[in-house]
């Protein structure tokens, strides 16, 4: 694979990675949010695979396969299952920050990500490093989703978005992530999702809803 071609492919994958993050912010339908999340997993896996092909590293290729399986297979499947149990709340109808504003905030976050990751890019101006701001933006957007969405499920997606972003930053920065670390992180995330899901089910059994705003009443 020629250097320019791989750089181009990497760029496209990075663009898709960012695009899916924005789409998640854009859509209200939980089902389609999960679909988009699965697509993002594919984009992430593609990014890792391109880097792997570039460096000829079998280890990375394995990680790419792992990412693909977990992030566009297992996690979306788990989320869908959670959704099918969720009953009537299939839409994020009233996020804390309305959709228009959150989209504009996302734009601001992207520019912020670009500004803060400038030194990182300057360290090593390789095509992979150029995509770091994109990954950074996904981290910030994920955090934003986590903060502003009401439903537990969409918050969960926000958390996973955050994690996708972190993984991408890891791979794109020259240091890379070893197989073991990625494995650990992935398992960690899986564990978190499972725990959250169990918690969510319990909460719903007790309170009948998973609008997290109403959990505040527990505190009072």
């Amino acid at each position: 694979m020629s250097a320019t071609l791989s750089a181009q492919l990497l760029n496209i994958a990075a663009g898709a990675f960012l695009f899916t993050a924005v789409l998640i912010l854009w859509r209200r339908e939980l089902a389609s949010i999960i679909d988009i999340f699965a697509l993002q997993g594919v984009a992430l896996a593609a990014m890792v695979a391109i880097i792997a092909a570039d460096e000829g590293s079998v280890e990375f290729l394995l990680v790419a396969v792992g990412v693909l399986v977990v992030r566009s297979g297992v996690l979306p499947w788990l989320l869908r299952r959670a959704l099918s149990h969720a009953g009537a709340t299939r839409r994020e109808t009233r996020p804390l920050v309305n959709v228009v504003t959150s989209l504009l905030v996302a734009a601001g976050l992207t520019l912020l990500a670009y500004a803060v990751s400038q030194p990182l890019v300057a360290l090593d101006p390789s095509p992979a490093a150029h995509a770091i701001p994109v990954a950074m933006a996904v981290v910030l957007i994920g955090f934003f989703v986590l903060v502003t969405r009401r439903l537990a499920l969409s918050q969960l997606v926000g958390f996973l978005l955050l994690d996708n972003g972190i993984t991408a930053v890891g791979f794109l920065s020259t240091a890379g992530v070893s197989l073991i670390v990625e494995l650990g992180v992935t398992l960690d995330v899986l564990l978190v999702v499972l725990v959250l899901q169990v918690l969510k089910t319990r909460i719903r059994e007790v309170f009948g809803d998973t609008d997290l705003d109403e959990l505040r009443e527990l505190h009072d």
Partner: protein
Amino acid sequence: MNVALGGLLTALVTGGLSALAGLLFPTPRRATVVGIGTAATGVAAVAAGVAAMAGQPAVVALPQLLPLAGLLFTLDPLGGVFVAVTGAVAVAVGIYGIGYARHGLRGRSFQAVLPLFVLSMVLVPAAASVGTLLLCWELMALTSLLLVLAEHRRRPQVASAGRWYAVMTHLGLVVILIGLLVFAANAADGSFAALRAAGPTVSPLVAGLVFVLTGIGFGSKAGIIPLHAWLPRAHPEAPSNVSALMSAAMVNLGAYGIVRIGFDLLGGGPGWWWLLLLGLGAASAIYGILLAAISTDLKRLLGYSTTENMGLVLVGVGASGLFAASGESTLAGLAMAAALLHVITHAAFKTLLFQSAGSVLAATGRRDLDDLGGLRTGMPFTTAAFGLGALAASALPPGAAFVSEWLLLQALIHGLPASGLSAAIVMPLAVAAVALTAGLAVVTFVKAFGIGFLAKPRSPEAAAARESPASMLTGMGLAGAACVGLALLPTVILPGIGAVAAGVVGSGNPVVVDAVTIRLADVAGSLSPLLLALALTVALVAALAAARAVATRRATAIDARLWDCGGGPLSARMEYTATSFAEPLQRVFDDVLSAEQDVDVTHVEESRYLVQTIDYRRRVPDRIERRLYQPVLAALAGWGRVGRRLAPGSVHRYLGYGFYSLCAMLILLVVTR
């Protein structure tokens, strides 16, 4: 013969004479003489300004006239642009004012002050020392205040508007004064030449302080948020010819001051100055046009639109400074040229719009768009004039502002690859801001023109409106001709503007012009407004001809009643009003505007299911005013109350204050020694 000097002196003389004429002539002929005199002052000013732009310097030094530094006037190319704009506006407004004065403005004081106001605006850009500038500035502030207050006997709101204006314009003066004094303290003396020499050597802290202070003062004159509060008050309440002068000529001088201090005297500065300016400009543009889009008072709408346009000018100036700071001098010149051209086009169309609004006001006595409509039958010329102005103001081709906004966008777009990180982040946002402004301007002026002039009249006054007298129409015609000229042949003045801009930022001329096409130097980009208008006309005629040829029924169109869904005839009450027109927009921007509305429903006594009346009120307060000014005013009022408690009127108490303070001073002396 030095035309610049001669023009300046002629303007001085004619302006002074017109003011005298205003005092001395008897009422019937006073307005005519003053109007012609003002126009003559304007012509002289235009001549002086154009000559100065062409490179003829004019220096007038009167060292003995003032105690401190004397009066010193120097007309350079930058000042020439603003003098010429002011003069051109004065020509149109002077002639317009002859007819407009019939509506209770023939009084001695008003007619005498009007030429002085014009004269002071001509002198401000020519002032070349701190003392001279401040003197002219104060003269301008005072005369404009008197003019704003002209109708205070007829309408009580005028007094409140005047108060706001007086306070804000004088606070602005104080801030400018402090800024310039700080600057002058670091230079040899108060003349601009000395300041210019000292500019690059002042410490960055002092320079920044000077820039920010003068920026606040000049920005408040330009109506930049959050210092715009006087503008939407004073503009509607002032007589329309004064509104035109203020909105088309006076506010420009705010931008002039910023350019003069920032570029010329301080010699450019660090990027953050200009970033700040650009941000404020963009915010003003969006906020101004948003409030314009939802306001229903025609003149208030135009006032907010002035805030918008000055915002755009400052976006250009800020971008120019930013480029200059990062060493992109051609782009800096381009942005500056765009800003200057926008000053000129804005002056042209805003003069026209305020004149048309004044014509409507004179004919109907109404400013509220919800009461207007249907004016096209009674006032065809005014309608056409306002339509022309609206086309220019909405930045659509073939309108005047399209060219300047195109230049501005080109400057912003080409800034990206060249400049550093801040530009990379700021420029896309600035483009988006300019674009949003342009979009909202379309809504605003479709609303103002469509609701105000087309459709059916919404009040008996609007239905009975008749066309204004010939002198007013002539004034409007002049402004309209300027709009058309700027729209079709900006290539005539652009080389001059480009040269001035290049001189300000120290670059080569950023625009290259052939007979009809504008090309940008160094970067790719070209536009031909004339060709565009021509193509549009040809297409229009061709479409008309083709439609005539193809349509088989040559029969003239029949005159049918409006489709009223088969019900009774449609009344004016069923029309969309300005309020309803802007309602979707207001809902979209509810987070920004936070409109207040309340609904009172009273029920029939017998049943609470039957409604007797519904009372619906909605108000969109100026949010900045509410958040920023009201707390300050409340605090001031609070202090005032406290202060009043200290002064109950007892002589003993006052003597006591003196005694206590004397003792306190003495104790302080003892302690400190």
